[in-house]
């Protein structure tokens, strides 16, 4: 029996190592972070990002890209801070409705063979418009149960860590272990062969988009739970963050090669990178540039580890 390290595991070690290194650097700069409260402060805003990253990953699994992720999460946050609190039933219906809209988008994109980039670009305007209509000025308030959930203090590990692990496990089960996940990734890998095996690629794509919608809705709700209130622009950066998170986690743009655990790690890494910079105290002129530099460094690390790794297995 030959011992083979599965490609998935290899794909994971690199982002995980990058995260560990960064975390070590942060602890070294700011030992206070090495505590229950410190870890929570470092990571709690990564929870919604991780959820959005999983959503983006599902879309990328079928070779599409969602440029509306940020404005969609903002819109959900607005709904959560208004309807979900004041009229839970209506709020729930709206959220269920937008998940269906996501599925329909998948269907339309498939049927008309449209580039997902353009459709989602268009949708980003639509979600932003709806959010502005809902909350012309920032406001609203998070439902109490959401707030309670996000500020919970579980024993042993802080909420941010517990939630991240839970998200990673859930997404792993859905995407890597379930039949639906296999078929979704199969569509990304070779659409024609999935079709030839008698599956409906249409239904699969709709499923992937619907699931992505669900995760994005969760991201919006989690975000409001942390910020306590919403505004129409609250999560715009999630579009690029979620894409970067998937890539950092070892995912690829095409070919259905994704890793849910990697995506969560990617989201955590991105969040941590921001803190790392804060602790470095760079001149304000270069703070923005340093964010770019840290992205480059993390990716360079990925390359370096890749090199070492491929040198070992001789591939």
């Amino acid at each position: 029996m030959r011992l083979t390290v599965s490609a998935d595991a290899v794909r994971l070690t690199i982002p995980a190592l990058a995260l560990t290194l960064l975390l070590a650097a942060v602890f070294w700069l700011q030992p206070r972070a090495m505590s229950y409260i410190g870890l929570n402060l470092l990571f709690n805003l990564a929870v919604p990002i991780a959820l959005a990253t999983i959503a983006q990953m599902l879309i990328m699994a079928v070779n599409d890209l969602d440029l509306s992720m940020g404005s969609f999460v903002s819109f959900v946050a607005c709904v959560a801070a208004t309807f979900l609190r004041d009229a839970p039933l209506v709020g729930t219906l709206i959220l269920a409705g937008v998940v269906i809209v996501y599925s329909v988008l998948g269907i339309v994109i498939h049927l008309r063979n449209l580039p997902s980039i353009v459709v989602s670009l268009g949708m980003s305007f639509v979600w932003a418009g709806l959010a502005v209509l809902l909350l012309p000025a920032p406001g609203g308030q998070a439902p109490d149960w959401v707030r309670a959930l996000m500020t919970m203090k579980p024993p042993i590990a802080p909420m941010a860590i517990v939630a991240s692990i839970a998200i990673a496990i859930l997404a792993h089960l859905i995407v890597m272990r379930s039949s639906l996940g296999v078929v979704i990734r199969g569509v990304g890998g070779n659409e024609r062969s999935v079709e030839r095996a008698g599956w409906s690629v249409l239904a699969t794509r709709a499923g992937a988009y619907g699931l992505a919608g669900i995760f994005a809705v969760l991201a919006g709700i989690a975000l409001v739970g942390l910020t306590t209130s919403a505004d129409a622009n609250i999560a715009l950066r999630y579009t690029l963050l979620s894409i970067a998170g998937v890539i950092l986690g070892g995912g690829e743009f095409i070919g259905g090669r994704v890793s849910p655990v990697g995506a969560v790690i990617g989201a955590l890494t991105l969040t941590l990178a921001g803190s790392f910079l804060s602790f470095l105290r760079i001149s304000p002129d270069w703070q923005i540039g340093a964010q770019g530099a840290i992205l480059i460094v993390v990716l360079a690390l990925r390359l370096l580890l890749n090199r070492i790794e491929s040198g070992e297995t001789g591939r």
Partner: protein
Amino acid sequence: MKTLERLSRRPWIWSWVAVFLVWFATIIVTGGASTLGLTQAALTFAAFSIIVGIGQMFVITLGPGNVDLSVPSTMTLAGTVSLKLMDVDNGMILPGLVVAVLIGVAVGLLNYGLIKALRIPPIIATLSMSFIVQSAAIWTNRGLRIKPPGFLAEFTTSGTLGVPNVAIIALLISLGAWFLLERTIYGRWISAIGQSMPAARMAGIPVDGTRFVTYVFCAVLAALAGYLLACFSGGAALNMGSEYLLMSIAVVVLGGTAVAGGDSNVPGIWGASLFMYLVVSMLNTYGLGAGIRLIMTGLIIISVIMLAGGRQPGAR
């Protein structure tokens, strides 16, 4: 009839149809009185998206995952630095232009350097680069708005025979781009790379050289657009490029260029750029609130792409 049918299969035709519909819907409000003004304004402002969009189109043609997100910050840096250098002096116009172009070359060089050296997806590489370039812009002029030299301000804001000068520049650049794409080896090469990089490599195409030149070309066009825009709007601002991030991508894909690469389209960029400007003008004219306006913009974009339809089967 036959020509009509052939025309309807051109990927760029739909953006032009949309342009005429929206244009008509706008001028009808004032009973045609605004025709000339609106057309001139549309040509003027579309010119900037066209220049930026052409560069972006070349990059997108390189295949899936290729996109330049550093366009806005390149525009900003080129605008701020060149205006600072010219310092309202008509004699410095040429050095200013040269510096803007050099900035474009430098950014493109660094962009491709990152992509190649770190083997990271261009989308991430150029995003990281854009942060650094933005910082450089902040560092060089700290947000001060310096006026452009008088001649340039006059030139960019006026027209020749009723056609805005910036639109004429955009037209010249478009013709050049069209020639590059359709007639030259370089055009073939980027299209081949966009369809399949391994196949391009095996066919003996200098893949890295071609991609490198393309990224530089895109950054140079962005820098040029920044230079013109800063002169046009009477000074460079640190956030002046931010609009052009999504805009440059939108005009490329709305114009019928294949998102998956390998197939590009110059007339479509014109249609899409005019369209993006006119939609906002139309909705402003109808006096709709920001929310409705955004929703309508989104729905119109989706309708146009639905009409234009997907790509032919067989293409990825």
